[in-house]
């Protein structure tokens, strides 16, 4: 299908382009920017006047809840939520049930996803069998089956000797390892950041040093082994400071934060809002401000949604018993725009953090609008307000701390490999 997107403001952070330029698509690829190729006749024209045309979003953490958690959400509902959010490539963590530690499970997931014809799914494999932290997985087999990296999701990796072996093994084949820095002992039993809010509300606390102690271990072992390491979901000022220092010393490390941590702090827990029960926890306002600064200066490479749909029964519980996590793949774009606007930063910078930068971390060719690239495109209205509420979300998970908020930035059209997967 030949699709012509006209009159839009084309922003491609990878090349720095930001101008009113038309885009021409054929056979799933971008065949013209600005001017059509010779003899081009569009089957379909999309008028993007007043809209932004950017690369389809690349989200580093979207829980699709299959296999194993289908009562919370299904592939169908979450993929359609991703499409509505302008996400065209997504990575899903290995903490399914069973975890993605066998090639068969990975193949099945990829197969199911491909048949739905929506975003491209990049599974992240389990680093250890069952995510139990005792035995290495068949990383080479898993990579053949389609895994782009290996992680331990939120499961504790206590045995440092095993961690070392896992990093060494991955480094042997140049596989990327994604780790969440959280020391199991220091975080044990905790449900909220160790600060004035947890003290006042009487919530068991997780100190910031749970992150920095683990970070220190991971960074030192990464340096030892030379593995490509990506740090998932930083949350503290001291944490990003350590990453900044490691990068300045030449270590090959990248990191991301969840979009929630760019906006919220412990103060947002209010009167025990279970939607603010997140991992890592929402820390102090000072931490939040440091994360924003690190996003702006590139210390934090990417923003992700950390999409975690949870059913109502599991969320409407006392704070400490509620299932952790928030839905958010549909909110990644508007919340990124909100950060940009509040911080008075260029739109292209914000879009970079959710397109070309995460694509680079994933090691995939995506997140850019270039001649010959796959036509993975997001067309959105940067000025259109909409209200975040259960009825407006496609995800089965309605658990978001942003319920009731009016945000700017509505996706109007999403294309994957030149096919329209979402339109409104």
């Amino acid at each position, binding site marked *: 299908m030949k699709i012509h997107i006209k009159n839009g403001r084309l922003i491609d952070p990878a090349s720095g382009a930001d101008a009113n330029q038309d885009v021409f698509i054929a056979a799933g690829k971008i065949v013209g920017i600005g001017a059509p190729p010779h003899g081009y006749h569009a089957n379909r024209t999309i008028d993007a006047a007043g809209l932004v045309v950017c690369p389809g979003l690349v989200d580093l953490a979207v829980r699709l809840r299959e296999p194993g958690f289908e009562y919370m959400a299904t592939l169908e509902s979450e993929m359609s939520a991703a499409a509505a959010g302008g996400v065209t490539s997504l990575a899903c963590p290995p903490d399914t049930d069973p975890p993605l530690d066998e090639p068969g499970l990975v193949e099945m997931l990829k197969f199911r996803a491909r048949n739905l014809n929506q975003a491209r799914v990049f599974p992240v494999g389990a680093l250890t069998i069952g995510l139990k932290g005792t035995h290495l997985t068949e990383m080479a087999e898993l990579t053949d089956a389609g895994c782009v990296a290996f992680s331990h999701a939120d499961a504790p990796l206590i045995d440092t000797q095993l961690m070392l072996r896992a990093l060494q093994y991955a480094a042997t084949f140049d596989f990327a390892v994604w780790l969440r820095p959280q020391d199991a002992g220091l975080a044990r039993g905790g449900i909220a950041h*160790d*600060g*004035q809010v*947890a*003290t*006042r*509300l*009487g*919530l*068991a*606390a997780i*100190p910031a040093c749970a992150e920095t102690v683990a970070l220190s271990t991971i960074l030192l072992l990464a340096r030892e082994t030379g593995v490509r390491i990506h740090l998932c979901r930083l949350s503290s000022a001291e944490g990003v400071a350590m990453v900044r220092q490691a990068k300045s010393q030449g270590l090959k490390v990248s990191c991301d934060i969840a979009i929630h941590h760019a906006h919220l702090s412990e103060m*947002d827990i*209010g*009167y*025990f*809002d*279970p939607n603010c029960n997140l991992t890592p926890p929402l820390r102090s306002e000072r931490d939040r401000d440091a994360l924003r600064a690190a996003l702006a200066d590139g210390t934090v490479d990417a923003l992700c949604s950390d999409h975690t749909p949870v059913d109502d*029964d599991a969320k*409407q*519980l*006392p*704070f*400490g*018993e509620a299932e952790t996590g928030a839905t958010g793949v549909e909110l990644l774009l508007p919340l990124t725009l909100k950060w940009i606007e509040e911080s008075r930063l260029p739109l292209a910078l914000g879009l970079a953090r959710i397109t070309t930068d995460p694509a680079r971390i994933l090691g995939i060719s995506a997140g850019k609008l270039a001649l010959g690239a796959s036509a993975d495109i997001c067309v959105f209205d940067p000025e259109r307000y909409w209200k975040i509420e259960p009825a407006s979300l496609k995800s089965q998970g309605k658990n978001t*701390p*942003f*319920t*009731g*908020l009016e945000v700017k930035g509505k996706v109007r059209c999403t294309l994957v490999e030149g096919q329209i997967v979402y339109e409104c």
Partner: protein
Amino acid sequence: MFLNQNPQLNKNGELHHLLSTEGLPAEILHQILDTSQSFVGVTQREVKKVPLLRGKAIFNLFFEPSTRTRTTFEIAAKRLSADVINLAVDVSSQSKGETVLDTVANLAAMQADMFIVRHSQSGAPHLIARHVGEDIHVINAGDGRHAHPTQGLLDMFTIRHFKKDFRNLRVAIVGDVLHSRVARSQIHALTTLGVPELRVIGPKTLLPSKVDHLGVHVYHDMAKGLKDVDVVMMLRLQNERMQGLFVPSPQEFFKSYGLTADKLALAKPDAIVLHPGPMNRGVEIDSDVADGSQSVILPQVTFGIAIRMAVMSILAGN
């Protein structure tokens, strides 16, 4: 976000639920204390009942067992002529799939007027209060580490009874503040009532982060902390906390933080000693202090019934 309006007060600023002493204006604290004074009179009469809550159904929803607190609420409710239904909600029935909200919805459908809730999780009564109909009142009988407002209030009543004016007092709270819902409720009430100097005394393992943000001075040395105080409030140390994970042993805790006659002598000579009970004699407090002339622990219990009668009456009438 939307959870930032004070859920305890109705739109006229009157008490609608009692979930925490935090966020209650001084006028409401005084209203409760003054009303309790009248109920003390009632508890001293031959006929200890008044017909105020006749026909009202009060449900004791105790998700965490407690005979003492439940009994005082039951006595208080009966003295107001209300009907009391006790539900010891078994943890196992919870694991059979019935959530807290399911339980509450079923009971509300049985024409409940008031829920008295005790739960091991901080914030559970807030969750319940958010989900009940407009004419049901919720009283927090203790949630996790967060709050135990009726205990805080009866402690305030006790202090007012013996010391009259809060604005002249130096108060010390001693022991496991980290895990204590009673301490948090006391701290908020004391600061609202205008106590000029509030101290917490305990080892670092038992004091929460940034506790000074609550308006207290932190002491690790009990001798320094008790100097010239007017009111000493002891906290209970749970068994599981004295076995080596927070403090090495009860003996060591008693040595540094137990209230003995010698340590009490550092406070003002007319200082009073409170304890929410049940006491661990020889751990937090020495028997001769607990039973001594400066202890007001028994009056605390009596006042507890009047306070609960006052709270239920004020809520039912609003």
